[in-house]
């Protein structure tokens, strides 16, 4: 989607491995989010940020960490991958007006 780039698109991890999901935006929006979507379900908020240097937990933060050193980037870190983290991860941005835009998603499988 326009303005939000996620990498990688697909990844298979072994239990206990770590990885970082990248999210970059070029729309200069302050608000950035990480959601996960489990099969057949809606999206659940993992972490969010209201601006550079400010992050906060969402509904399902356990097992994840984030940082926001710049307006453009909002990486999501998985330290010790577990099968329960198998999901599709979406990064989103929200500006003014309040419409939210989503990246293309990262499909993660933990085996």
């Amino acid at each position: 989607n326009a303005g939000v780039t996620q990498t990688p698109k697909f990844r298979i991890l072994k239990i206990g491995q770590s990885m970082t999901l990248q999210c970059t935006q070029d729309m200069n929006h302050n608000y950035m989010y990480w959601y996960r979507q489990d099969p057949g379900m809606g999206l659940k908020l993992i972490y969010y940020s209201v601006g550079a240097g400010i992050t906060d937990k969402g509904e399902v933060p356990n097992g994840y960490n984030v940082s926001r050193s710049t307006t453009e980037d909002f990486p999501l870190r998985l330290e010790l991958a577990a099968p329960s983290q198998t999901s599709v991860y979406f990064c989103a941005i929200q500006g003014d007006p309040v419409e939210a835009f989503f990246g293309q998603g990262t499909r993660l499988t933990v085996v």
Partner: protein
Amino acid sequence: ELKVEQNPLFLSMQEGKNYTIYCNYSTTSDRLYWYRQDPGKSLESLFVLLSNGAVKQEGRLMASLDTKARLSTLHITAAVHDLSATYFCAVDMENKLVFGAGTILRVKS
């Protein structure tokens, strides 16, 4: 805690028929969003509803918001196959979106 409920969760429609998807939410909010998701794809924004009584229409889809009833509807008029997808409503709670579980729509010819 804000809860968002959509119904139905699955909807099989005949082409040409009309139907409505409902989105109920549990706490006060005056911002509601509707998204469409095709299989294996990201979410596409359909409507942004920002006030009580807001109504928006795009093609065969029309969305409305009643903040007093904490209810939004997505009405489908004369369904066509191309509308087959999963539709999500999401409610804004302090600049964080809380999603419903989604409605899988299948339009049959």
